[in-house]
């Protein structure tokens, strides 16, 4: 080898070695925190129809590390999947293998009962700089754990949302006072009745009320909660007690069946929002427990719609919260070795404007923290932007049976009551009997 080549080889080797050494030193300075995230795009992707770009998960990591240079956030992003390849068995395997510190964990309550999660309330107590950005949710979401019967084992990092939608144009046509920001059942009933009939301006048949037939159970539970009903509880051993057949639920079901008279006849067969919603053809005035996915993007894209399609807070119970919860819980594994750094990461991932913006831009998920307005000014500027961005903090605690037989038992009974094949009392009796049979089989 010639001397010049030898020198060049030496020089390049030295550069590469020092680069690697530098990177290694830099990584050594940082505290690693691994986090399991579910269902985010791995890479930037562009919607073929709208041209909207969904940012890849790397953007979240970059934003975090820019804000927290002392922590090396290692995101493990998995798809939701189904069955044996779904997120649930992967989460279980990762918990058992101590493979991550933080987990986006839909089944967090069950892991908490097993003692696999950290009670975050203790970290909050020890954290003098902690600011509650999640409002009442930090109280609502407390559940039983082996080290605390009222522990906080997860904080929601993003959510879907249910609000009460109402059509301001129909209210205007009938000369009915707009729906208030926190409507009561009485206000809804009174105005729904006034808004059912022939529209004085268009001559079209309009309906004061609406429910999604195939998901009526969620609206019913929201109504019942507003009347003070309580479905039951989960005991220290994880066993559930569920009480449907109570006077309060009966009163709620009678109210619901009565209000269904002011909804389109085909509502029982519907699995979405009414035909014509978000267009000039809408004929439905009030939609309690309406889904957010149907209106956020169209309202952002078409500001004219914002004045017509309004949102009010969901019905609230005596406890000050109300509406079904569709949160994504973020939890910390008890086996996490870097709990301080993980706590910093958890707070940032669940509460920062950057993180909330990422969840919305990548998956359309709504902020759960009070940083929502800063994260998404395009929503904050809606006439009801504050409702849209703060309703998630006032949602009920997730129902632990939401994907199990009690849901189907109640849903079927409701369908019978709404169709008139069962009386409300018979419907609740049927739901209770089927739920009891299921509960008896739970280990």
């Amino acid at each position, binding site marked *: 080898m010639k001397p010049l080549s030898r020198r060049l080889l030496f020089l390049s080797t030295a550069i590469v070695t020092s680069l690697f050494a530098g990177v290694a030193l830099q990584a050594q300075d940082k505290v690693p925190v691994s986090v399991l995230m579910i269902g985010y795009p791995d890479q930037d992707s562009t919607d073929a129809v709208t041209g909207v770009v969904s940012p890849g998960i790397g953007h979240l990591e970059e934003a975090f590390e820019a804000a927290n240079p002392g922590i090396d956030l290692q995101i493990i992003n998995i798809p939701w999947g189904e069955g044996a390849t779904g997120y649930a068995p992967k989460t279980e395997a990762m918990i058992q293998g101590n493979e991550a510190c933080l987990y986006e964990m839909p089944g967090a309550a069950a892991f908490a009962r097993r003692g696999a999660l950290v009670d975050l309330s203790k970290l909050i107590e020890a954290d003098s700089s902690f600011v509650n950005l999640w409002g009442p949710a930090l109280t609502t979401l407390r559940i039983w754990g082996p080290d605390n019967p009222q522990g906080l084992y997860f904080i929601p990092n993003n959510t879907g949302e249910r609000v009460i939608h109402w059509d301001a144009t129909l209210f205007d046509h009938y000369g009915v006072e707009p729906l208030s920001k926190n409507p009561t059942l009485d206000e809804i009933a009174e105005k729904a009745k006034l808004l059912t009939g022939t529209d004085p301006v268009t001559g079209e048949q309009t309906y004061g009320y609406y429910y999604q*037939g195939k998901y009526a159970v969620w609206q019913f539970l929201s109504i019942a909660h507003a009347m003070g009903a309580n479905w039951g509880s989960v005991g220290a051993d994880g066993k559930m007690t569920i009480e449907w057949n109570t006077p309060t639920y009966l009163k709620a079901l009678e109210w619901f069946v009565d209000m269904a008279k002011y909804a389109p006849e*085909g509502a029982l067969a519907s699995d979405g929002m009414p035909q014509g919603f978000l267009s000039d053809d809408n004929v439905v005035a009030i939609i309690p427990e309406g889904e957010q996915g149907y209106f956020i993007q169209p309202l952002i894209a078409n500001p004219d719609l914002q004045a017509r399609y309004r949102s009010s807070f969901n019905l609230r119970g005596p406890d000050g919260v109300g509406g079904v919860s569709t949160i994504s819980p973020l939890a910390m594994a008890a086996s996490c070795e870097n709990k301080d750094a993980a706590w910093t990461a958890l707070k940032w991932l669940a509460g920062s404007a950057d993180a909330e913006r990422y969840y919305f831009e990548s998956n359309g998920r709504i902020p759960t923290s009070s940083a929502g307005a800063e994260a998404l000014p395009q929503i904050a500027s809606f006439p009801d932007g504050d409702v849209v961005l703060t309703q998630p903090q006032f949602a009920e605690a997730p129902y632990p049976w939401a994907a199990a037989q009690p849901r189907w038992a109640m849903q079927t009974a409701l369908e019978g009551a709404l169709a008139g094949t069962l009386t409300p009392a018979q419907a609740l009796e049927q739901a209770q009997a089927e739920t009891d049979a299921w509960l008896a089989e739970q280990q």
Partner: protein
Amino acid sequence: MTREPGSASFPAGSGYSTSEGPMRRAFSSLTRGVWVWYTFLLPPLLLILVFVGYPTLLAFRQSFYTRTPEGQVFAGTYHFERLLTNSIFWGALGNTILLGLAFLAIVIPLATIFASMLNRVRHGATPLKVIYFLPQLTSSVAIAIMFHYVFQPDWGLLNGGLRSIGLSEVPLWLADPRFNLTGSRAAVTVLAVWAGLGYFIIVTLAGLQSIPADLYDAAAIDGATPLQAWFTITLPSLRPTFIFLIMTGTIDALSRFGDLWTLGGPGGAPARSLQSIVMYMFQTGFESNDFSLSAATAVVFFLIVLGVTIIAFWGFLRKEFKAMK
């Protein structure tokens, strides 16, 4: 070339023949060329054993066990007792039978009439057959979504049409769980007939075309009218076709899932009026995670289908098989 004693290819009287010789020769002639076919049949057989046989055995086993945090615990016939005392199961079974009977009672006569007319068509029969058969090639989910738009009570195509001709009281179709001719069960029966008619027509047409023309000639000579010939020659001659359609149609009706699931969701909404036994099995297993009850349902379903097949065979087909012998 060395030959082994007893080889089937040894000539007779060569001195190597034993008492086994004729038997071996017979066996050899029987199996000659057969092994190659068994070799070809082996891969699909293995696939069936792995993906059908083994899961079936597992389902049978699971129906006698209960999953607990400590593992599987033998439960005897407990899950069958739960199943047979469960009103939801009986409701789903009743629905399945009712929807199946309604479907067959409509589709077979309709298919016979359409096939008889197609059989008479001189020009354009093939395009018509293709058109009638097209729904059979469409996914049941796509058909269900399409019929959701047809039967939606408020803005659906059918009620829109009824309103346009002046009817103000229109049926509720998919929002009505009652047992009536304008409810959800009627709607899904219309859907099933629309989707399955083409297949039934094609099979019936094949049956019609296998009837010897001599019979019709003889009937014409005897002075029979076309209608008399249809009743006395065509319908009796189609007996094997009808039996085939009833058997396969029954099994298809019992295993109905995709369209009902799409229209009624896991619970067969409204009020379980569209819940079939397979939907119940799926909901129990994959929505409520009660795999033992779901497996017990699968076993009972298997026995029902087996029973239907045996009854159909002994009741209807024995005569045909005897005639073939």
